[in-house]
């Protein structure tokens, strides 16, 4: 069915440089269509001119200079933590440890999640045998209230920038999300970390901090209040 004039004007009003066959056919169908398209193109040229601004001469060299700085050193040493295997039924696997410090919490989050974040989510989806969440958290002087512990589908110990922490996968109405608890690390409150189609928000707790990690489409902020209210930290022998 051919496009009427009103539809055509709306289409070229949204996308004046549209060159798909249907639009071109409509454009050539009558003089008024052609005139409207020409006017839209003329306005578009003015719009392009208005939006054109000059990038600073030194911008490219400034950006390129970023690569002159030393790249992060990574030297992963897989270490089997037998003790964790005893506690985490079914969560067999290797945990890793970084022999050199991460240059920031942000790079730790990206590296840690890239290492086994997706695998943990898959394990949580597959369902793991009942885990005593609070028994594991107690070893990190933390405890999770019912609202949070009821959502945790998978938990394991994990390395953090300042020692051992916990990696948890929680079930939410947006799908599984990950909480990385760092008992001895302070973070830039509310900072967002973006990496590989994922993003995380950093939240300080009474003691230590968490990163709440989700896919780009997930609203990780939605979990902040729940985690703050339910994850109590700094409780020795919790």
């Amino acid at each position, binding site marked *: 069915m051919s496009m009427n004039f009103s539809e055509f004007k709306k289409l070229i009003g*949204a996308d004046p440089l549209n060159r798909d066959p249907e639009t071109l056919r409509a454009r050539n169908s009558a003089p008024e269509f052609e005139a409207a398209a020409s006017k839209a193109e003329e*306005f578009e040229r*003015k*719009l392009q001119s208005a939006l*054109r*601004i000059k990038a600073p001469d030194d911008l*490219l060299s400034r950006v390129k200079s*970023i690569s002159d700085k030393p790249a992060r050193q990574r030297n992963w040493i897989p270490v089997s933590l037998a003790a964790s295997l005893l506690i985490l039924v079914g969560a067999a696997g290797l945990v890793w440890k970084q022999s050199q410090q991460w240059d920031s919490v942000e790079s730790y989050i*990206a590296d840690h999640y890239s290492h086994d974040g997706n695998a943990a989510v898959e394990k949580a989806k597959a369902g793991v045998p009942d885990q005593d969440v609070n028994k594991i958290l107690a070893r990190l002087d933390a405890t999770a209230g019912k609202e949070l512990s009821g959502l945790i589908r998978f938990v394991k110990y994990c390395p953090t920038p300042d020692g051992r922490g916990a990696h948890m996968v929680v079930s939410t109405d947006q799908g599984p999300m990950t909480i990385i608890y760092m008992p001895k690390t302070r973070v830039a409150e509310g900072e967002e970390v*973006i990496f590989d189609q994922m993003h995380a928000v950093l939240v300080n707790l009474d003691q230590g901090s968490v990163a709440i990690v989700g896919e780009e489409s997930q609203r990780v902020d939605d979990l902040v209040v729940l985690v703050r209210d339910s994850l109590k930290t700094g409780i020795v022998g919790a």
Partner: protein
Amino acid sequence: MMGKSDRTRRFNELAEAYSADLYRYAMWLCGSDALAKDLVQETFLRAWRALDRLKDAGAVKSWLITILRREFARTFERKVPLFTDFEKVSIADDGMEPDDKTERDLLRNGILKLDPKYRDPLLLQVIFGYSCNEIAEQLGITKSAVMTQLFRAREKLKAQLRKDGVTGNVHELF
């Protein structure tokens, strides 16, 4: 993992391909030359850190834009952009007639006054040459919503020009 020289080469290619457009985009988002430079710098710093994990070359542009948008949102969570530096970064008015320059300046003011929900898709379309589908994906809204916002953005700009009394060529466009 890439070697250092491969990393640097790939990074430089990205910088050459996208830094100027990202700066323009940042300028239209925040209106400040210094902040726009910082936003671009921060965006590429993150790109450099994540370069090994950026395997999908086709997704890089969108990824860079997403980082910049989020960094901007974070920066301006508690601040209102001032939009002050446009004269400083304007292109030269080579051969432009005074009327055309007036018209361009009015159009710029109109763009700055647009609600972000109209300005955002317009910037992605005009600066980055994004299709309506790509804008929809970038902004997480439907293509139909994108088309409506783009149409209304242009209508609002035309209305603003009419209100500002432009009677030259632009008037004939309506």
